[in-house]
């Protein structure tokens, strides 16, 4: 998979996504939205998949729960992965399912060594069932917790070493979490080994409407400029990686999202809107 830029696929954009002729465009969906027996959504995804690479980005496997991944969910994920042959399958370093109840969010946990063992086992189980490695994404964090044994970067790196999984680096989540919990986003990104990073996410955030100073990972706004700066810095260090523009709320027209996607694409490929200003040619006879 060449490192080009993709777009989170929304049902209201199926028709335009199908006919877009953008260079290197790929799409990503949440498999949970396609865990159905049939229907127009699966048909549309099939048509788009015939023309474009696809990534499956899970939000419901609950890898960080102190429980085995739900066999039914894992089977549904495998069925989709077998059917659509995505170039990557990813999930989050978070939990959502616990004791039979699903909380539709990506919840935090104390990063203890015991949790590392449990999550490495859950990733291993997932990869065994899928028959492929997955990427694991850093979550957006809102709650300072006591009792961590490891920094998040060390925790993620240990998971890659133990399981062979790769990392999906969500630069907006790094920005939001660093702001909310008070650490340096640059140092966080610099700690991630280039060879582990398989994909990058970019999304928008916003203020907490509840009135706190927290930033919220809303996926409801354009990517913020400081996040673009962090992104360029990361790509300069590790090289280009498949990069996704995510938008899940206040979804604008396809063309508006494609303009953001084209900016990332330009930064990855050195062309178009996102390209670096070209240096002046060196004077001859130097």
């Amino acid at each position: 998979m060449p490192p080009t830029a993709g777009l989170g696929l929304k049902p209201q954009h199926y028709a335009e996504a199908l006919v877009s002729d953008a260079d290197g465009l790929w799409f990503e969906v949440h498999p949970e939205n396609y865990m159905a027996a049939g229907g127009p959504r699966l048909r549309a995804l099939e048509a788009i998949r015939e023309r474009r690479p696809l990534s499956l980005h899970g939000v419901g496997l609950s890898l960080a729960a102190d429980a085995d991944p739900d066999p039914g969910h894992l089977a549904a994920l495998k069925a989709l992965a077998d059917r659509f042959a995505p170039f990557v399958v990813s999930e989050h370093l978070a939990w959502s399912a616990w004791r039979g109840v699903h909380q539709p969010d990506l919840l935090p946990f104390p990063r203890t060594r015991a949790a590392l063992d449990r999550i490495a086992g859950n990733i291993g189980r997932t990869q065994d069932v899928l028959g492929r490695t997955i990427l694991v994404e850093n979550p957006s964090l809102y709650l300072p917790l006591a009792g961590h044994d490891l920094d998040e970067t060390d925790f993620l790196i240990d998971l890659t070493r133990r399981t062979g999984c790769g990392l999906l680096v969500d630069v907006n989540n790094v920005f939001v979490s660093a702001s909310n919990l008070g650490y340096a986003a640059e140092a966080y990104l610099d700690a991630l080994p280039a060879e582990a990073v398989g994909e990058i996410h970019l999304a928008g955030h916003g203020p907490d409407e509840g009135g706190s100073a927290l930033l919220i990972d809303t996926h409801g706004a354009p990517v913020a400029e400081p996040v673009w700066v962090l992104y360029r810095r990361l790509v300069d260090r590790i090289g280009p990686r498949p990069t996704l523009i995510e938008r899940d709320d206040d979804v604008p027209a396809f063309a508006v999202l494609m303009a953001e996607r084209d900016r990332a694409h330009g930064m990855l490929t050195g062309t178009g809107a996102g390209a670096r200003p070209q240096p002046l040619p060196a004077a001859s006879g130097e």
Partner: protein
Amino acid sequence: MQSALSQFQDAFVAALAERTAAPLAAWLPDGEAEPAGLSVYRNTIAKGCIDALAANFPTVASLVGDDWFRAAAALFARDNPPAGAALLAYGEGFADWLARFPPADDLPYLPAMARLDRMWTTALFAPEAEPLAAEAFALAPDVLAAARPRLHPSLAFAWFDRGLPGLWLAARAPEPGEMTLVDDPQGVLVVRPEDTVRSRQLDLAGFAFLDAIARDGASLGQAITAAAEADPAADLAALFAALIADGVFSGLAPGDPA
């Protein structure tokens, strides 16, 4: 003894439900009694549930308005959280819950609207099957009468003792017209033979016809007889042709020779 991670998850879920950080005290750094972050998680979870219910019950949402719907959906979700991550099917008990929800007492049609929305959403995500075209039924009369049809896997139909299907269909129309609730009983059928969910009113003969097949595995001849008994004045040929055009049949097995 429970692992530390299990204890944390139990405490986190309790802190979400009880709207206090107290259960999480052992994991919170000193000083912050009610951290704002916990509210962020609570709000995101509630929004995820409410948005899914709004998507799955659009007619209910349009009839009661956004504020009423979101307030009711939040209460439903608190007591009936999703059991799985795929929220396409979330809200199984919503219609029954609305029937017991005191603020909906003056909206007695609302549980039926939820039930009909659920039929529509279920049809949308039902398994695929090729609908039978009219040519498949071009058989000798005795062979046709003995044949046993298979109903499309997306088909749902129901009978209501008031005009609730008409109210629901009017509310779902792209440009909703006048919505009136008549006292006459009405049926409804919902089916997705290909990409699009179709829904329409069903008269008593049409309901009896489909019910005989779905309930008793009736042959076409037996189903026609059931329709004629339900309404002796029914135009049975038109009824059958309309069901074929709707795409409600996905198979036809030869029957036993008479």
